[in-house]
């Protein structure tokens, strides 16, 4: 008998708790829901939580300052969901957010999760701003609702190819990629940009994202005496590759993308990593226009910044600024305002191009010096 009574009590409790989840009209202020999606569990949970905190900080600031849309006082509430960095889970949580009635979404974190989720947001007319997805495919699908405040892979590749020729002074360039969508996409852009800048691509070789032996292709490349070897791929390949370059006595400069610009690359390659140059989209925190102020505010509240929280913070501000201009939180109305964004954020000047990509996104180049990644310089793409 007690068991059944307990069940009733619990059911009632769930009902009461459930009520709290619905948008409420308390007094004359209206609650508006904003979605956030990122991996909150699993190996990337620290990055996902970081995004959530960045978005939440912006939201709290806007609420504290007071927001009025269409003559009504508005209180913003965040619905944060865990996509586990998994494409399938991402579509589930995207649908959940839509069903809960969010009017806009900050997310997702990974390209692989952002791309499938973007279709669901597009189908339901919900604007989405990703703080960190870099794959070209995200905005290439032509969805009117998809935006990002992060430099994409094509912009990064263009900067890399140009930098190799104009700044690193490479005339003869060898390009290797790992045949993944990321590696191949980046390498193709590097090749185009290097040629456009007057460089000569003397070799184009291929490997896989499972290989560790590059002696054969590197030997073949060595025979063409390049000044620079670019690799489009991740650190587990980049590290043995630079080691084998040293083993073969190659003097060519090593250049990589953000897949190689990791602490793990230095750990795996050891002394061979010295002198390698690699890029990462965006700015290092201390070079962001509002970096130090953001850092002080954020760390007082949430602890150390992991990576993308400044971008999530800016994305939230960009989203709400569009609502303010439209004087409405109705997605159908304020979506038209998003492409007109011209916002001076923590991470820089945010404007969108026709596809929803960040116009003139920044790419920062780093070099391994004394066993650490040191910032070389930041380059604006499209210049």
């Amino acid at each position, binding site marked *: 008998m007690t068991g059944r009574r307990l069940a009733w009590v619990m059911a009632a409790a769930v009902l009461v708790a459930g009520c709290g989840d619905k948008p409420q009209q308390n007094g004359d202020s209206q609650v508006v829901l904003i979605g956030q999606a990122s991996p909150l569990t699993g*190996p990337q949970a620290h990055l996902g939580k970081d995004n959530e905190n960045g978005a939440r900080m912006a939201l709290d600031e806007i609420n504290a300052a007071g927001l009025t849309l269409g003559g009504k006082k508005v209180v913003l509430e965040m619905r944060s969901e865990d996509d586990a960095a998994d494409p399938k889970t991402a579509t589930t949580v995207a649908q959940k957010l839509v069903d809960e009635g969010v009017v806009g979404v900050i997310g997702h974190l990974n390209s692989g999760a952002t791309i499938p989720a973007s279709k669901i947001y597009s189908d339901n007319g919900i604007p989405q701003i990703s703080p960190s997805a870099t794959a070209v495919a995200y905005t290439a699908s032509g969805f009117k609702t998809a935006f990002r405040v992060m430099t994409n892979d094509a912009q990064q590749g263009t900067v890399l190819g140009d930098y190799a020729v104009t700044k690193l002074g490479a005339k003869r360039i060898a390009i290797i990629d790992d*045949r993944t969508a990321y590696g191949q996409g980046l390498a193709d852009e590097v090749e185009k940009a290097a040629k456009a800048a007057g460089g000569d691509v003397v*070799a*184009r*070789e*291929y*490997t896989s994202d*499972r290989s*560790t*032996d590059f*002696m*054969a*292709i590197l*030997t*073949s490349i*060595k*025979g063409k005496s390049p000044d620079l070897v670019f690799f489009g791929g991740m*650190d*587990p390949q980049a*590290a*043995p590759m630079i*080691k084998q370059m040293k*083993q*073969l*006595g190659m003097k060519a400069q090593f250049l990589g993308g953000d897949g190689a610009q990791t602490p*793990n690359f230095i*750990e*795996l*390659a*050891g*002394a061979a990593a010295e002198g390698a140059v690699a890029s990462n989209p965006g700015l290092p925190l201390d070079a962001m226009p509002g970096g130090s102020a953001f850092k002080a505010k954020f760390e007082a509240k949430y602890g150390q910044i992991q990576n993308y929280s400044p971008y999530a913070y800016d994305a939230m501000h960009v989203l709400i600024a569009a609502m303010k201009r439209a004087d409405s939180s109705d997605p159908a109305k304020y979506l038209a305002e998003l492409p007109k964004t011209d916002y001076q954020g923590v991470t820089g000047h945010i404007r969108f191009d026709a596809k929803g990509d960040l116009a003139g996104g920044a790419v920062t180049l780093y070099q391994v010096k004394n066993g650490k990644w040191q910032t070389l310089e930041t380059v604006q793409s499209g210049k």
Partner: protein
Amino acid sequence: MDIFLQQLINGLVLGSVYALVALGYTMVYGILELINFAHGEITMMGAMVALSVIGALALAAPGLPGVLVLGAGLVVAIPVCVALGLLIERVAYRPLRHAPRLAPLITAIGVSIILQNVAMLIWGKQYLPFPAILPQGRHTLYGASITDVQIAILLLATAIMLLLILMVQKTRLGRAMRATAQSRQVASLMGVDVNRVIAATFAIGSALAAVAGVMVSAYYGLAHYYMGFLLGLKAFSAAVLGGIGNLGGAMLGGLLLGLIESFGAGYIGDLTGGFLGSNYQDVFAFFVLIAVLVFRPSGLLGVRVVERA
């Protein structure tokens, strides 16, 4: 010429690692007609165990010479792999010795998956760096370069293969192994303890795998729970290329596969004028394998075995 020589060195080093692993496949196949798909994972385990020992030693006694630390890693990795090989044989293969041939093949694949996941649980999913403890010396030879590690791999692999041939041809155990390979029943009627011979075969194969695993991770400077899969597949192909069940065939097959891969990846782009790139290096290697098998179904050195009644 220097490029050709360099590709030759690359191919020989890669090939001698393939050969060491291929020997493990071929020895077990020769005696049991079983393809031990878990063999690649034993190689991986050897690398992982040695890496742990080397990491611990490098922390505990940073002053020790690199070769000694590596030796300590091997000394631990070999018995661990031998024990693992014996355990797998006892648990997964011996109970199925009289079962239809497909059954042990399936358990072999099962064991391989289990080992991969165990390694992932113990050592994690990330790539582990191999500490830079070995001399980084590099020599130039007619424009081609060869490192101390490459020389060590070539010498060690050659020495181990010669010892193995000597063991199989000259010792009592070797004779018992050859007898068991020819016919298990007759060998056991002649007083050969077949179970012991089979166990010894697994033990020797696993020890070779441990050495190969340590070589691979020292050479490339990293280890990963998945590294045994592709290595195992290549070595198995090498064993088939040379004629599975034949020791000399495994060595020849391993070296050939290494050379084909190296020259294939190095020259295919230039030979076809960029039409086929180095992304076809595996296609090229397996095309050669198919071509050989079409003309010599039992491999280069394999002899056509009449099916037993």
